[in-house]
């Protein structure tokens, strides 16, 4: 509500370089949480979603060499195309994956599938809708215990969107969408700005108030029909979730908030200034990780089908609307245009990963990237086809992630030529005469390396040894 920047006391901010962030708060933090926990035990996960798929031109297309998203070659012996070239300097920390997809939606139009990218749920193309917990929330249930904020949920469009039109990547235990924050200023305040000097009292107050809200709702419930009770149940669940957050906040009360230098942040930026917006969002995740405010983050670059402000992202590289690029690949320069946009994302994504790599793990070994695994991908590849998801894993060496490779799973589509060159959505449920592995196999593998004891996720059938 306070529209101004006044809530931040600028004098409190440290000026200077990143190293200056080895701060006194950190000592009290370690004392509080667990004196025995070494910071190298820290594990982080961030997931990013790119809507609209990627360029998959046909082999005989002149654009194939430079603007096919998937690298050429296989295993350790591969070359990035121009789409992913910005990641070359990170090559030894990067794995590109192909041949993975969620089986339940392989014949559902790509426009409907952002919802299930991290969940693997059979969300379908129409009718009843039910989702399930997302990868990040599985990990957050464990990692969230160690940090002030259990996970960051961000997107360019904000909120939850609609069923099959998600504007968030994250879903809770009950499969309910978790609204994403989209205003840099709000995200910053949540992470680094103290809302009240009298936090202890406020939390005690909140606890009592929440009990009272439950009582109110329970008494209302008696007068409602079944249909209305469902709506009320959602409200009740929200109050319960808030209670959990308050409980947690209580534990963190005595630990001062980290202070960070804000001078380089453009907190008022909007997606109409796409490059700066994207950089600011990445920077906020970076700062959240660096200050150990959270160890889990999702950021959806845009929602599917070119609806919403996220469709402006392509303006960063001189195009009008992002989604249109996917439809115009057959026009002169079409593949290149689409690829140029993908390259822009790779640049920003690579910049973020490089920044983690350049930052030593505070009080631990190696750099931050070694303790952070990044998943970047889309639920469609060639023209809204919900198969052969384009996926990149970066970082996490200390957790045992192996890199410097292009892994292609499945059989029968080795060269990514099935449905290559499609320029309309005609093919989105074409017959699938090749095999792919469930993406959930990757998720199980990731969860295990992240220290979550599980041997399954959604419809997984195993793990991926190569990762």
């Amino acid at each position, binding site marked *: 509500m*306070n*529209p101004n920047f006044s809530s931040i006391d600028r004098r409190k901010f440290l000026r200077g370089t990143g190293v200056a962030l080895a701060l006194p708060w950190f000592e009290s933090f370690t004392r509080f949480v667990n004196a025995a926990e070494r910071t190298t035990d820290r594990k982080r996960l961030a997931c990013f979603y790119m809507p609209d798929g990627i360029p998959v031109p046909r082999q005989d297309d002149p654009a194939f060499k430079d603007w096919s998203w998937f690298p050429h070659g296989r295993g350790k012996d591969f070359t990035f195309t121009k789409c992913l070239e910005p990641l070359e300097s990170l090559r030894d920390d990067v794995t590109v994956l192909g041949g993975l997809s969620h089986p339940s939606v392989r014949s559902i139009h790509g426009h409907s599938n952002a919802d299930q990218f991290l969940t693997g749920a059979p969300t*379908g193309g129409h009718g009843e809708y039910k989702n399930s917990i997302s990868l990040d929330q599985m990990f957050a249930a464990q990692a969230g215990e160690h940090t002030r904020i259990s996970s960051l949920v961000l997107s360019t*469009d904000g909120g939850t969107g609609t069923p099959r039109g998600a504007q968030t990547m994250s879903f809770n235990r009950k499969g309910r969408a978790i609204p994403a924050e989209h205003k840099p200023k709000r995200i910053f305040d949540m992470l680094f700005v103290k809302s009240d000097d009298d936090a202890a*009292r406020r939390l005690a*107050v909140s606890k009592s*108030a929440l009990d009272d*809200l439950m009582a109110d709702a329970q008494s209302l419930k008696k007068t409602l029909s079944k249909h209305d*009770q469902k709506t009320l149940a959602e409200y009740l669940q929200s109050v319960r979730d808030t209670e959990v957050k308050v409980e947690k906040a209580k534990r963190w009360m005595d630990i001062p908030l980290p202070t960070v230098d804000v001078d380089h942040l453009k907190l008022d930026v909007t997606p109409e200034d796409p490059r700066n917006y994207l950089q600011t969002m990445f920077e906020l995740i970076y700062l959240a990780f660096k200050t150990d405010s959270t160890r889990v983050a999702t950021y959806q670059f845009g929602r599917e089908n070119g609806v919403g402000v996220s469709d402006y992202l392509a303006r960063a590289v001189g195009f009008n609307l992002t989604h249109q690029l996917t439809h115009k690949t057959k026009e002169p320069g079409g593949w290149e245009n689409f690829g140029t946009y993908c390259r822009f994302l790779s640049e920003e994504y690579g910049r973020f990963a490089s920044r983690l790599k350049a930052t030593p793990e505070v009080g631990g070994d190696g750099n931050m990237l070694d303790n952070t695994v990044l998943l970047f991908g889309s639920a469609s590849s060639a023209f809204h086809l919900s198969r052969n998801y384009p996926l990149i894993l970066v970082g996490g060496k200390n957790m045992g992630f192996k890199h410097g490779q292009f892994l292609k799973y499945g059989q029968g589509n080795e060269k990514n030529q099935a449905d290559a060159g499609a320029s309309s*959505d005609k093919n989105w449920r074409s017959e699938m005469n090749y095999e792919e592995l469930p993406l959930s196999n990757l998720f199980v593998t990731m969860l295990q390396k992240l220290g979550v004891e599980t041997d399954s996720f959604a419809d997984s059938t195993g793990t991926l040894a190569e990762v």
Partner: protein
Amino acid sequence: MTNSFGTSLLAFLVSIPAVASAGNYETEIRPFLTKYCVSCHGPNKQKADLRLDKLDPDLINGSDADMWQEVLDLINISEMPPKEASAQPKRSERQFIVDALTLSFRQAMEARRSTGGRNVIRRLTAYEYNNTLRDLLSLDLQYAVDLPPEGSAKEGFKNNSSVLGTSALHIEYFERIARSALERIILAPTEQPTPYFVRVEPELAFKPEPAPVTTENQKKKQRKPKRRPGSGYDIKGDHFVPDKSVRGPLFRIDHGERSTDGSGVLLAGNRPSDKVGDPFAADRKIGGSQGDGRSGYQPEFRVEMYEVPHDAPVLVRVQLSAVPGKDDAYPRLSFELGSFRGANVSDQKEAANIEIRSTEPKVYEFVVHGANFPFQSNKPGRPSYFRIFNDYRRGTSHLTYEELPKLNIDWVEIKCNHYDAWPSPQKKAIFFDSEHRNDEPVYAREVIARFMTRAYRRPVSDAEVDRKTALFRKLRTQEASFEATIVSTLTAVLCSSNFLLLSEPEATVVQDVATERRLLNDYELASRLSYFLWSSMPDETLFELASKEQLHKSNVLLAQVRRMIADPKSEGFSRNFASQWLDLAGIHRLAVNPEYFDFKEKDKGLFEEESIQFVHQVLKSNLGIDTFIDSEFAMLNPALAKHYRIPGIGGGSFQQHAISKEYHRGGLMTQASMLFGNSTGSETHPIKRGVWVLERLLDDPPAPPPPNVPDLPEPEGKDLANLSLKERLVEHAQVESCRDCHAKIDPWGVPFENYNALGQWREGSSDPLVHKAHQAVNIDPSTQLKNGKRIQNLDDLKKYILTEKKSQFRTAVVRKVMAYGLGRYLEFSDRPAVDAICETVGKENDSFQTVIEQIVLSEPFLTK
């Protein structure tokens, strides 16, 4: 939809309203499957592992709905039966089965989302929440800006329960917003804050005639460009600044003239140096970093203030008079609050914009809240400012500078930290006078009970008050003061389901099922009315009528509806209903292609505002709903007139202007909001425009396209790439599977071909308003409706709707307003009510107000 289907729909719904199956299965669907499909997908063969004769025809409870969708789609795009099959259905057979299946799916969807024709509990929308806090606390702030964005239901309405989710994030925001608003009011300092005051006598900006030049040094100086009065000048104002160490305020005038009697300053909307030229040419200069086309070239009266109390009410007093211009043109007083954010970067927002007609000096007073404006600079050391423009601009008229109306400003006073009384009236409304004021427990209960009654929009039970006073007692030991405890207790009231949810208890609930309809009580009715017409809570008058149990009486209801429409808060209806009905958000989903147009993104706001103001005008002036189809006026401001190339429109904000035929404007369909929102951002898009007309104006949405058919074929290879959009459309309709659907859609979009993607008029074979490379177009608005009716152009289409489609259009408007008013989808059980309303409306000259009145008097509105 063919006639036979209309009948079967009716029969279907009457016989089994709650169960949709692949309905007409036995008579319509099974015979087709048996004839063309079962030989490959039946008992003998199961190609693709599919056996159609065993599919469960129950689309709601059965498990085969997905498979049925697949069947529908494959038949629809003529992929099944395969070409090589010997038995091929005729086109008409194929169309028939597709229609039958499509209809069944629609019915199944309706049945699934059915609320039994009853209103359901729902959360306040973000905008309703904002307005409710505004009215509850009598404090006009932007409360909802940080709430997560909200979606729209299938038919476009945001107040539908199905799209109003609640999450922990919401609860956190609701808590934070309520607490901070209550703290602002209740925990305000005991001492009244010191005001910051400045008074400006603008004539002081004009120096007396300079002394004669005598020395060489002075001559040298004179050769340098000199700031002349009227081109920009700083003086110190007469002021009271609380902190004496802070730099005093500065007054700056840009291109004002000293008034003839020397007592003030004359401010025109254009600079004297602006030449009257082609009114449609680009602005001479686009000022400001935002390119808002305003600062930087418009004469300006500005007061800059350092470290001003920005988060508090501001009183502005201006004494001025009008100097009318030619043709009865009157000046407009517009003022803004803003701040500098860097070198040449500023941010500001308009606070008022009124026409001044009095030629005698009069004092005008305004109170606004600084928190609603970018009034505090985010760069330390930069000033906040107040500025006045004359918002009568030349626009597309040919008034010379001398002929322009001017503001004659005598003086201006600005007082920040302005409070008429202390404690503030808002605080006194919560802590009212009472004989128990000194008895804390008793008084607390009184305060809480009174606040709850308004927040819950109904009388509260003793048990409810008990619970909150118990909370108060519990918190009292944790909080520092009585007032702080009240803040926390009332925050809980504002996070309660009783405040956030609009709910109407059932008469009786037996085993979770509501058993009977009941009339709403008067308080529930008051809330339905106020959220319908004001997007906010009821006011004192409605509460009072409710407490006396008078509100439900028809004559009282009617009088209240009229009063509420006349109230400025009815803009809440026009703004929210129009935005959702007409899908004005579409404007912002789409970007203008810079290869085609020079266009300022900011001007999209004009498109949106035109349609909102138009709907509001129809409501306020009690016009007929036929005005939505065609009108002899338009709601314009100079910038939009320029966009439409309509000459002679000066002035400031949106106003009603009579429009002659030659400009081709009238009704909603010629507004840029619809025309642009349903274009591609470069070219027109007849399909989107046609679908918009069918969905929004005729409530006859075409079946959704099979999901694997693109809007239009993407150009494959050179041939198709060179085709114009309309030619591609024709190409598209050549595909057999597309033809039948498009015969129903395209003719409703083609007549708009005279309007380019930005909604500007064009004819013949060239569109001069588009960049050179794209000017050549072959504009042909003529078409033929599916029923054979020939339509020459949009005027023809309007006539057709107003005659032969009149009743369908009327029903559509009634249904849209009703769905919005009830906050739910309409269902079959609402049909009789809709029909009755339409009949009355038809007799009452189709007045829009009658539509609203009759909905309020209808059974669905009056009952739960």
